[in-house]
C-alpha cells in the first residue's frame, strides 16, 4: 500500500471525478461526499508519502514499470512531499467550506463543479509529484483548463476574466512547452533526474540558457510575476468564492514550487545561479513585483481585489527570496510557499464568509462587520497579522528568513521592498479593520452615542470550522517553524 502512494495520490481524485460526473446525471447528492472522500484520501496518501520520505529519503515511482528516462517517473523528496501535504490540506479544507457556497449556485450543475474541483486538485498534485518535464506540462494544462472553467462561472465579469486568464495561461504554458522543446533538442531527454545529469556536461550551450529563459518566462506568466500579472486580479476576484479559495492559495504557489524544482532538479543550481545576470534580474523583477503589488493593492476598493494584489506581491517575495541564492533566502521562499498558502486560504475563506452573508465584497459594505460576524473577523485579523508578518503567526517567520537572506546577499533593495510591503499591508488591513470596527457613522462624522446593537449574522458552521482550523494553523505553523525548517527544508536545499 505505502509504496503505491504516489500513484494513488493522483489517480483516486481523478477517478472520483469520473464517478461524480457519471452519477451527477442521476442525482447531485453523492457528488459532494465523493469529492470529500477523494480529497481526504489524497490528504492521507500525501501524509503517508511524506512520512515515507522523511523515513527513507527519496521515493521514486516508475509509472508503467519503465525505468527513467524511458518512462515517466515520479520522484518524491521532502520538498515535493511537503508541498503535497499543503496542497491536499488546503484543497480539503476549502472543499468543506465550499459546500454551502455551492448549494444554490451553478443552477443544477454542482456535480460538474465538484468534478472540476477534484480534477484541479489532482492536476496540482501531479505537477508537484512528477519527475518528468513534459508530464508536468500536461498536468499544468489540466489544472489550467479546470481553473478557467471554475473561474468563468463566477459573477458577471468572470467570463471575461477567465478568458483573459486562458489567453495568458496558454501563452505561459506554451512558453514552458517551448522551453521543454529546447531542452529536449539539446539533451534528448525529458526526465528531470536524467536532465540534471546531462546539463552540467553541456552547460555552456546557448540552447540550454534559452530553454531556461523560456521555461521561466512561462512560469512567470503562470505565477503572475509583476509585469505579467494582469490576468490574476480579475480572475481571482470575480471567480465564485468556492473556487477562489482553492485557486488563489494554490496556483501561484505551485508555480513557484515548479520554478524551484526546475532549478534544483533540472537545470541544477550551479548552472542557474552561475549565470552572471539572470538571478539579479529576477531579484529586481521580484522587488518591482513586491512594490507594485502593494501599491496597486492600496488602490483597490474590493476585498478580493486587495487580496489578489497581495498575492502578486507575495509572489515577488518568493521569487526574490529564492533567487537570492543563499540558504536563508531559499528557506524563506520554501517556507513561504506553505505559509502563504495557509494565509491566503484563511483570507479567502474569510472573504467567502463575507460574501456569503453580505453578497458582495466592497469595502464600504463592511461597516459594523466586527459586531455582525465577530468570529470571522477574528480569523481575518489573525490572517492579516500573518500577512503583515507579526509574530507568532507564520508569516513572520518566512519573512524573517527572507529578510535575513536579503541582508546576507547584500540585496538591500529586496529587504527594503519587503519592509515596504509589510507597512503597506498594515495600512491596507487596518483600513479594512477600521471600517468594520467603527460603526456606521452619521453624516456629520460623529457616531451616535447610543450604540445601536447590530444583530449577529455569522456564516454557517460548515464555513466557520474550516476557517477556525486554518486560523489556528497559522499560529501553530508559526510556532513550529523550526521543525519545518530543520526537519524538511534543510534537507532539500542544495549546496551551492
Amino acid at each position, binding site marked *: 500500500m505505502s509504496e503505491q502512494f504516489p500513484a494513488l495520490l493522483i489517480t483516486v481524485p481523478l477517478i472520483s471525478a469520473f464517478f461524480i460526473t457519471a452519477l451527477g446525471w442521476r442525482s447531485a447528492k453523492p457528488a459532494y461526499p465523493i469529492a470529500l472522500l477523494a480529497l481526504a484520501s489524497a490528504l492521507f496518501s500525501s501524509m503517508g508519502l511524506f512520512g515515507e520520505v522523511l523515513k527513507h529519503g527519496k521515493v521514486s515511482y516508475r509509472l508503467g514499470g519503465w525505468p527513467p528516462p524511458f518512462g515517466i517517473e515520479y520522484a518524491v523528496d521532502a520538498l515535493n512531499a511537503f508541498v503535497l501535504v499543503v496542497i491536499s490540506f488546503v484543497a480539503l479544507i476549502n472543499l468543506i467550506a465550499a459546500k454551502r457556497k455551492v448549494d444554490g449556485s451553478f443552477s443544477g450543475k454542482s456535480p460538474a463543479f465538484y468534478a472540476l474541483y477534484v480534477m484541479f486538485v489532482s492536476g496540482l498534485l501531479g505537477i508537484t509529484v512528477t519527475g518528468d518535464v513534459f508530464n508536468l506540462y500536461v498536468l499544468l494544462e489540466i489544472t489550467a483548463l479546470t481553473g478557467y472553467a471554475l473561474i468563468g462561472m463566477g459573477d458577471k465579469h468572470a467570463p471575461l476574466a477567465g478568458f483573459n486568464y486562458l489567453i495568458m495561461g496558454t501563452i505561459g504554458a506554451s512558453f514552458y512547452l517551448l522551453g521543454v522543446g529546447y531542452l529536449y533538442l539539446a539533451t534528448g531527454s525529458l526526465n528531470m533526474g536524467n536532465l540534471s545529469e546531462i546539463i552540467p556536461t553541456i552547460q555552456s550551450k546557448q540552447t540550454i540558457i534559452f530553454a531556461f529563459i523560456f521555461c521561466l518566462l512561462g512560469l512567470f506568466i503562470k505565477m503572475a510575476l509583476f509585469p505579467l500579472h494582469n490576468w490574476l486580479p480579475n480572475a481571482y476576484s470575480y471567480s465564485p468564492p468556492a473556487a477562489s479559495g482553492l485557486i488563489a492559495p494554490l496556483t501561484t504557489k505551485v508555480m513557484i514550487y515548479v520554478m524551484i524544482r526546475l532549478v534544483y532538479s533540472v537545470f541544477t543550481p550551479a548552472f542557474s545561479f552561475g549565470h552572471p545576470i539572470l538571478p539579479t534580474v529576477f531579484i529586481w523583477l521580484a522587488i518591482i513585483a513586491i512594490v507594485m503589488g502593494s501599491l496597486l493593492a492600496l488602490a483597490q476598493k474590493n476585498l478580493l481585489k486587495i487580496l489578489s494584489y497581495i498575492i502578486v506581491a507575495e509572489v515577488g517575495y518568493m521569487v526574490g527570496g529564492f533567487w537570492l541564492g543563499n540558504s536563508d533566502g531559499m528557506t524563506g521562499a520554501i517556507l513561504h510557499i506553505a505559509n502563504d498558502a495557509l494565509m491566503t486560504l484563511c483570507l479567502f475563506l474569510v472573504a467567502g464568509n463575507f460574501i456569503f452573508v453580505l453578497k458582495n465584497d466592497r469595502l464600504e459594505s463592511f461597516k459594523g462587520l466586527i459586531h455582525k460576524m465577530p468570529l470571522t473577523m477574528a480569523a481575518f485579523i489573525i490572517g492579516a497579522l500573518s500577512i503583515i508578518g507579526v509574530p507568532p503567526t507564520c508569516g513572520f517567520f518566512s519573512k524573517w528568513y527572507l529578510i535575513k537572506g536579503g541582508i546576507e546577499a547584500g540585496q538591500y533593495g529586496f529587504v527594503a521592498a519587503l519592509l515596504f510591503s509589510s507597512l503597506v499591508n498594515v*495600512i491596507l488591513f487596518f483600513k479594512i479593520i477600521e471600517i468594520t470596527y467603527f460603526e456606521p457613522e452619521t453624516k456629520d462624522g460623529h457616531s451616535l452615542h447610543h450604540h445601536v446593537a447590530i444583530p449577529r449574522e455569522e456564516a454557517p458552521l460548515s464555513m466557520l470550522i474550516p476557517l477556525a482550523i486554518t486560523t489556528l494553523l497559522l499560529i501553530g505553523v508559526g510556532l*513550529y517553524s523550526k521543525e519545518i525548517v530543520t526537519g524538511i527544508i534543510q534537507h532539500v536545499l542544495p549546496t551551492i
Partner: protein
Amino acid sequence: MEGIESIRPLLAVAVSILAVPLIMLSSRKPNLREGWTFLAAGLKFLIVLSLLPLILDGGSYTLTIVQVLPGLGIKLRVDSFGILFALVSSSLWIVTSAYSIGYMRGLKEHSQTRYFCFFALSLSATIGVAFSANLLTLYLFYEMLSLATYPLVTHHQDAEARKSGRKYLAYIVGSSIGLVLPAMLAIYYLTGTLDFSYQGLFTGTESPLVILLLLLLMIFGFAKAGIMPFHSWLPAAMVAPTPVSALLHAVAVVKVGVFCIVRVVTGVFGVQFLQTLQLGTVLCYIAAFTIITASLIALAQDNLKARLAFSTVGQLSYIVLGVALLSPLGITGGMLHIAMHAFGKITLFFCAGAIFVATGFKNISQLNGIGRKMPFTMGAFFVGSMSVIGVPPGGGFISKWFLVLGTIESDQWIMLVVLLVSSILNAAYFLPIVYRAFFHPPGETGISTGMEEAPSFCLIPLMFTAFCSIVLLFFPQPFYSLAEQSVRMITQGW
C-alpha cells in the same frame, strides 16, 4: 549564569490572557466580570511577587516556551530589571482596574466587556515584554501590545478616535516594522544571536557607523518611548478613556517603549561597548532635545490630558537620558524613574479622569477654584505633580537625584543643565494648575461650592497612588535594590 527553569514567568504572562475568555463569557454580569479582572490582576501581582525573593538573591528564572527557529526561541527570562518593571505594571493594574470600574460605570461607557478584555491582553503583553529573554520575544510582545491597545485607544469609535487610532498604529506599528525589524535582523545576522546579555552581543569588529545606525533604528523604532519626532501619537492617543490613558499611556505602553530601549542599550549593545564607541552622547542629545521641547510644548497646552501627555513625552526621555549617560548612577536613576514616574503620572491621570467624571471638564482654564470642590483629588494632583517635577514629597525626587548624580559622574555638564532647566519647566506647567484650582475664585464656569468628589471607585485609587508616591520617597524598596542590582550586573563586565 543560568537561571532556574520555571513555569512561573509564563504563568505571570498568561494569567490575564486566561482571564479573557472568562471576562467575555460573563459579559452579561458586570460584577462577575470585574471580579475576574480583579482575580487575574491579583494573581498576576502575587506571581510576580513570588518571583521577587530569588531575584533579590541574585538568581533568575528562565523558560523556553517554544523554539521557533533554529537557535532562536520564544524565551522568557526574569531578571532584576524585568521584575522591577513587572512589579510596577502589575501592581498598577490592580489599582487601574478599580479605577476603571468607577470611571466606566460612572460615564456609562459602551462595550465595557471589550474594554476589560483588551485591558487584560495589554497587561499580558506588558509583562511579556518585561520578562523577554531575547529580542525576538520582546518584539513579539511589543507588537501584541500595540495591537491589543488599539481597541482601547479607539474605544469611543467616533471620528476623532478613528483619526487618533490611525495615527497611533501608523507610528507604533510602522516604526516597529520599518525600523526595529530590520535592525533586529541585522543584529541577528551580525552576531548570530538575539539573547540579551549585559556584555553586549557585538564583538567589536563591526564598524561604528553600522552600530550607530542600528542604535538609532532601535531608539526611534520603539516609538512607544515617544522620542521626538516619533512622539506625536501620544497626545493623539489621549482620546482614549482616562483609565486607558492612565495605565497604558503613562505606565504600560510608554514604559514598555523605554523599557525596550533600556533593554536594547544595556542588553544588546552593552553599556561598555557603547562607551568605547562614545555613542552615548548622541543618545543624550536626542533625549535632551526631546525633554526640553516636550516641556515647552506642554506649557502651551490647555487640555489637561494633552499637557500630561507632553509631560510624559518629556519624562520618558529622562529615562532614556539616564541610560544614555552610560554611568552606573545614571542608569540607576533611569530605572528608578520608570517606577517613580509611573506612580506620579498615574496619579495625575487619575485626577484628570476624576475631574472629568465629576464635572465634565477637560481644559485647564475651566479648573478655576475646583480645589474647593474636589479637595482630595486636587491634593493628590499636587502630590503627583511634585513627584513628576522631582521635589519632595514626591518619589520622583530620588530618581531625579540619581540622574543628576549620573550627569556629574559622566561629566556631562550640559545634561545637568538640561535636567535643571526641564525641572523648572515642569514646575512651570504643573504648579499653575494647582494654584488655579485652590486659589482662583471660581469664575463664570459655574462650579458650585461644596464638595462634589468623583465616585469612590475613582477616588480611592488615586489617593492610593498619591500615597504610594510619597511612601516611595522614604521607602524606595524594592525598586531601588532591584535597580542597583541590575546596574551591578551591567557593570560587572567592566
